[in-house]
């Protein structure tokens, strides 16, 4: 069972991994959230293919051919010298070794935003399906492998694919996912991209809200905050369960931090809505759509919610999210013991 700590929700570029599949195609991945698709291809963009064969019988023809070969060598050099994720270049047998500084200042440096000089292209980025931070069967017996496989591999995946389809023509291309959720919610009249973008965000959040051997009690600051805002930990659990069971139809239930009131609260939402749309900070998200529990629990929703709270919820994630939330919300002075 592999468990890794949860990712932060800011999708910063973690690294660049270049892979040359063929000379004419470049496909690279930035973190696990972006896939750069190949460039628009014009018929003449295949690198080492001559546009038209030059007649090398004449002197001019020979010169033109020579220039073409030099140009092609330059372009290959650029591609081959493209830095991998740690920034160092890969030299081929035919290239010359140059110092890093000289490389950075040279015209041979790979330009990611313009990989084919002089060609027509557009580099676009889309979302890909992030994997949960545990094996698919790690949540047994409280959430079966079958459920995770279908919920993640089919439902979540479908949302990602539909989101990418929208992004091809959407005005919201370029927004971060959180920005897009808030913007496309449009204060209650959601735009067409809202459902899929919010579902993608919420499902990413959901998988990271759980861990194998989760549940039981939180510790330290998180427990103190919950006790402060709900009275007792049992009160919080009761409120969470009640909210989860009160939803009419598909929805989610959230533990979230209210920015203005600076306290934790529980709220149910309909369909794909999350606290992002009203500007607060989600801390735990539980999917109450039927597909999340039907295969394991049939219609017994309270067993599903209880098992989530007792055995699945990742208080580690909660702690990390609260820490991040404290950068935005002043939760009061820490209790520093007096000597």
């Amino acid at each position: 069972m592999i468990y890794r700590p949860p990712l932060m929700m800011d999708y910063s570029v973690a690294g660049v991994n270049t892979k040359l599949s063929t000379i004419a195609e470049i496909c690279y991945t930035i973190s696990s959230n972006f896939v750069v698709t190949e460039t628009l291809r014009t018929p003449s963009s295949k690198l080492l293919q001559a546009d038209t064969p030059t007649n090398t019988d004449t002197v001019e023809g020979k010169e033109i051919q020579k220039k073409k070969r030099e140009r092609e060598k330059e372009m290959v050099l650029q591609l081959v010298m493209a830095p991998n994720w740690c920034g160092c270049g890969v030299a081929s047998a035919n290239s010359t070794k140059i110092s890093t500084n000289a490389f950075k200042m040279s015209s041979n440096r790979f330009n990611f935003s313009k990989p084919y000089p002089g060609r027509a292209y557009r580099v676009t980025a889309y979302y890909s399906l992030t994997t949960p931070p545990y094996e698919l069967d790690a949540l047994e017996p409280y959430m079966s492998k079958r459920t995770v496989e279908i919920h993640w591999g089919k439902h979540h995946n479908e949302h990602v694919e539909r989101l990418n389809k929208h992004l091809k023509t959407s005005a919201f291309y370029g927004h971060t996912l959180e920005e897009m959720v808030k913007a496309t919610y449009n204060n209650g009249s959601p735009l067409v991209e809202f459902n899929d973008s919010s579902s993608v965000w919420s499902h990413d959040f959901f998988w990271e809200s759980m861990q194998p051997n989760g549940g039981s009690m939180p510790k330290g600051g998180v427990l103190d905050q919950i006790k402060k805002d709900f009275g007792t930990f049992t009160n919080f659990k009761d409120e969470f369960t009640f909210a989860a069971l009160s939803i009419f139809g598909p929805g989610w239930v959230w533990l979230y931090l209210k920015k203005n009131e600076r306290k934790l609260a529980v709220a149910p939402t309909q369909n794909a809505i999350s606290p992002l749309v009203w500007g607060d900070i989600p801390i735990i998200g539980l999917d109450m759509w039927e597909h999340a529990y039907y295969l394991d629990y049939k219609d017994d929703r309270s067993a599903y919610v209880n098992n989530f709270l007792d055995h699945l919820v990742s208080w580690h994630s909660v702690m990390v999210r609260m820490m991040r939330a404290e950068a935005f919300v002043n939760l009061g002075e820490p209790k520093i013991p007096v000597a």
Partner: protein
Amino acid sequence: MALRSVVSRKTLAPALRHYRSLTTFTLPDLPYDYGALEPAISGEIMRLHHQKHHQTYVTNYNKALEQLDAAVSKGDAKGVVQLQSALKFNGGGHVNHSIFWQNLKPVSEGGGEPPHGALGWAIDKDFGSLEALVKKINSEGAALQGSGWVWLALDKEQKILKVETTPNQDPLVTKGVSLVPLLGVDVWEHAYYLQYKNVRPDYLANIWNVINWKYASEVYEKESA
């Protein structure tokens, strides 16, 4: 009558107060066995759908009705309005499912047989062909985000057939007061998930094998008379 629900009279009257009798509802019986709609809809789904989900709607609807009754007799306007969403959800669930059980019939008893007579002509007139109607209902059902119902409706005023969708358990009348449900297909996940998992289009394609067009024709002829 479209609804075959058995109504029972219950009185809520402690000793000296005024008498008010409240009509509550009970779960209607299915006109066929749970396993009779296989392989289009599995027996396990039918059993859970009827005994658990529909029963829950009936129970909660009765509870909401009792609370409504109390609020109305007390003159508690805020309470009455607050109960509306519970009434719409649970009452709608009861109404919709009662129609749904009528809309299905085992193959051996005529399920899946295409409509003849007035309804058949009306379908051809308004949609072109039965295949076109089925395709439209399937595409609207598959495209519905979340949970809801997809209906073949008769608009009594305009005297045409329409395909409508309603979210959650909203009954068809929320889309138009003159709409009469002829056929309703439940596209909540509990209606198909155990058998079809996430592939709602397969469920929609297969359910036509057990659709009771006779019932739809009867309702159509009665309401368009």
